[in-house]
Each structure stands twice: as structure tokens, then as C-alpha cells.
């Protein structure tokens, strides 16, 4: 192609990427939890197994706001969920806008939850934008903890807090840490699930990482 050829449009470029299946739009996920009293042992184990621990495990302190957007044609259909995450310990970093689809219920023997997921870095007035778009805030929380990497896998061990309205320190919602093992990859790479399961087995019995049935959680009362 000559240097003076017309540039390819962004839409065409995206279509090509979709056809070539190189866009990481699928999340493979396992979740579990560990009590506060046992988290240090888990962190120690992860330090031994993971890659990014030269200068100690990486910490993060994020706030996440969850929005929903109802389908105007079908009020009974589940709303579209969007999540906005911002780093409280690095204010100049972009926001992360995340679309998460419903978990794929296809194969019950799959080792992990599989759901469509788009991670989009954003700057600008994202919260106002989503409000004007017609989204409604469902809930928000802050999450603080540690992030580990093992190849393509990301492991987070973090505590979830309620957002405090005044200057009081944030209140944790439980006496445990949420542990998540996830990989973001293009569609059709189901072998990743097996690698994740093998890694999760190395963390037993400190933490039991499993597929969560979100439908069962949806029926529990929320205080």
C-alpha cells in the first residue's frame, strides 16, 4: 500500500478485527472468597505462584458505579448493565467503562463462567454522559486490594466497601475478601478455562474458586 493511500475507516478496521477474531470480548471467570483471618496465607501463596511480584504485589483502590439501561421496546427484558470504574489512588488515570453480558448458559460442564465483556478506557465526562444517555445508577461500591498476574490470567484479592456519604472511613460489607480469577480473550478460546481450573486447584484449600450461579444470588434479599 502506498504511503499516500487513503486511511482505512475505523469501522472497517473494527470489522476486520472482529472477522479475524482478535478482539478480547469474552471474559472467563472464577470467583471465591477468603476470610480476613486467612487472607495473608493466600497472598503469600499467590506471591509464590504469580509473575508481577518483584516489588511486592500490586495494590489498587477503585470505586465502581453500576448503571442500567432499560430496553424501551421490551420492559420485561433484562436491562443492559454498564459499569464505570475509577482509580481512587491514581486520579489522572482514565475511567474504565465495562459492558458485561449475561453468562453463557450453553455447556454446564464448562470449567468457568463465560460472558461477553467489553473493557473500554474513557476520559471526559463519562458519568454525566451515561446519565444523559438514559442510564440509571443501580449501586456503587469501592474495592481495595491486590492484583496478581499469571500469564494471561488476572487474580484479584480485594475487599468491598460501602461508599461513605460523609468523611467517615468506608465500611466493609463483609469480613472476607473477594477473590476473582479472570481472563479476557477473543471468542472461542475455551482451552483457557482448563488452564484457569488448573491454576485454581493450586490455590486449594486456601480458597475455593468456582462458577457462581448468579440466578440464585438474584433471589437473595439485599439489605
Amino acid at each position, binding site marked *: 500500500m502506498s*504511503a*499516500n*493511500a*487513503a*486511511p482505512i*475507516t*475505523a*469501522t472497517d*478496521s*473494527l470489522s476486520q478485527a472482529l472477522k479475524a477474531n482478535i*478482539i*478480547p*470480548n469474552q471474559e472467563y471467570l472464577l470467583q471465591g472468597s477468603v476470610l480476613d483471618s486467612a487472607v495473608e496465607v493466600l497472598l503469600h501463596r499467590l506471591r509464590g505462584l504469580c509473575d*508481577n511480584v518483584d516489588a511486592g504485589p*500490586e495494590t*489498587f483502590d477503585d470505586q465502581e458505579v453500576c448503571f442500567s*439501561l432499560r*430496553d*424501551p*421496546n421490551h420492559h420485561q427484558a433484562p436491562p*443492559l448493565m454498564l459499569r464505570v470504574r475509577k*482509580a481512587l489512588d*491514581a486520579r*489522572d*488515570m*482514565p475511567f*474504565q*467503562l465495562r*459492558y458485561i453480558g449475561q453468562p453463557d448458559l450453553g455447556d454446564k460442564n464448562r470449567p468457568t463462567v463465560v460472558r461477553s465483556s*467489553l*473493557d*473500554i*478506557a*474513557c*476520559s*471526559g*465526562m*463519562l458519568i*454525566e*454522559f451515561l446519565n*444523559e*444517555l*438514559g442510564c440509571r445508577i443501580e449501586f456503587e461500591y469501592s474495592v481495595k486490594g491486590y*492484583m496478581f*498476574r499469571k500469564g494471561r490470567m*488476572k487474580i484479584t484479592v480485594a475487599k468491598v466497601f460501602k461508599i461513605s456519604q460523609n468523611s467517615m472511613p468506608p465500611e466493609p460489607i463483609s469480613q472476607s475478601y473477594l477473590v476473582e480469577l479472570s481472563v*479476557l480473550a477473543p471468542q472461542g478460546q475455551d482451552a483457557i478455562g482448563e488452564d484457569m481450573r488448573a491454576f485454581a486447584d493450586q490455590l486449594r484449600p486456601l480458597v475455593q474458586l468456582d462458577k457462581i450461579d448468579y440466578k440464585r444470588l438474584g433471589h437473595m434479599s439485599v439489605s
Partner: protein
Amino acid sequence: MSDRSCYVCVKHLGCHFCSRLWDRRERASGGFALHTRTANSIRYSLQQYPVPENKTGTYVVELLTKRILALGATQQGQFLVDCESYLSHPLMGTTKTVHILHNSEQPASVFSILESGTKNIHVIADGLFDLLMMKLSQHYTSKKQTKIESKGPRFELGDFCVKLGSVTMNQNFKGILIEVEYRPCVMANAVWGLLREFLQGLLGPTVPVQPPQHLISRMNEIYTPIDTIYQYLEHFSAYRKTTGMRTT
């Protein structure tokens, strides 16, 4: 080193600022890095150039190309700025429009401007934002027949960068948009006089005295790529209301 490019300097992520932010963000999310701006932001002016009655768009672009090459500029590829607009579903209440723009100068970015009544809210995101708009198709529908773009050669002349854009909508030629960028300066107030002088030398006396509408209230603020996009949107909206012209 990743081969993804930073949307501000459009280089591989090797500059100090980019690699610091990329490294931190890539570890946390595994996704794209996008940072707001560096001190090397650049300054644009966007002008329509009238096509005389008995002439065509192609003739005018060729004429301006000869002029700019005669000044000593060299062509450095082509550029493309495009805009697709999405209208909110009638059942969602007051009509809102989401304009999605892309600029080949920032290939890793998608610019989104939401028009709601009198206010405009913008978001700058990475390339996957286009995929999100597809997920929102029940709520916001694309008006494909009004997709509009400005495309053409790009020239560099010292500290200036000049782009001669032919504006087309649905294959119909609409007019010529000239974009001039003065790279060293980040504030409109400090450079509008110089830019106007350069434009007059290139285009003659048709250059307006006043800066572009979008910049008038922002003359003392740091210029960023979204300011260019607002200017393009202003012109594209005007072009959408006009009928097409002859191109050849």
C-alpha cells in the same frame, strides 16, 4: 513493547509519558491505555473553502494542492475524519443524538459527543466504544444515510500541518474543509493572529476575522484533540443541511 499507539502522540508506546501510564493501566485492567493530554497538544483551525459555481471540488483541491506545494510543503499521507450519528428511541423521552467521530490523527481513539437540548457532553474512549454502540442498537439507532466524512491529502510545512478535506455524505460531495494546525502552541489566544495570517497567505481574503465558534469561549484554555472534533462536528452539522454539489 506493545504495538498499540497512544492517541495523543500517535507513536508506539515508547515515549516516557505513554509508557508510564500504559504500564500501570495495562497491569490493572489488561485493556487499552488512554491518557488525556501531554504538554505537546496542538492547535487547529478549521475553515470551509467555497467552491465557485462553475468549478468542481476536485478542481479546487488540485488548485490548493498546487498552492501549498509551491509554498514548499511536502505531502505526508492522507487523513480521514468521519462522523456517524445515533438518535435516541422515541420511547426514551426527549430526543437525544450521539455523534461518534473518528480522526486518523488519533487512530486508537473514538470521540463521542452527546447532544441533549442545549448542552453537549463528550467522552473520549478507545476503539471498542464502537462495539458498545452496536450493543445499544435498541436504544440508539444509527442514521446511516447521514454518515459524513472529510478525507484528503495531508501536508507538512515547517511547524504547520495543512489538510485539504473533501466532504462527502453518502457518496454525495458536499464541500471542502481545510484544517490548519500550528504544532508548537497549545493556546488559541497566543496563535490565532499567526494562524489567520498563514491562512490568508494560502486562501486569500476569505478567512474570517473571528476564530471558530467553538473556540471563542476557550481562547485561554489548553487546546486538546476534542476541540478539533467539536469544530468538525459544527461543520458536518451545517453540511448535512445542504444539498450535494458536483465533484468532477
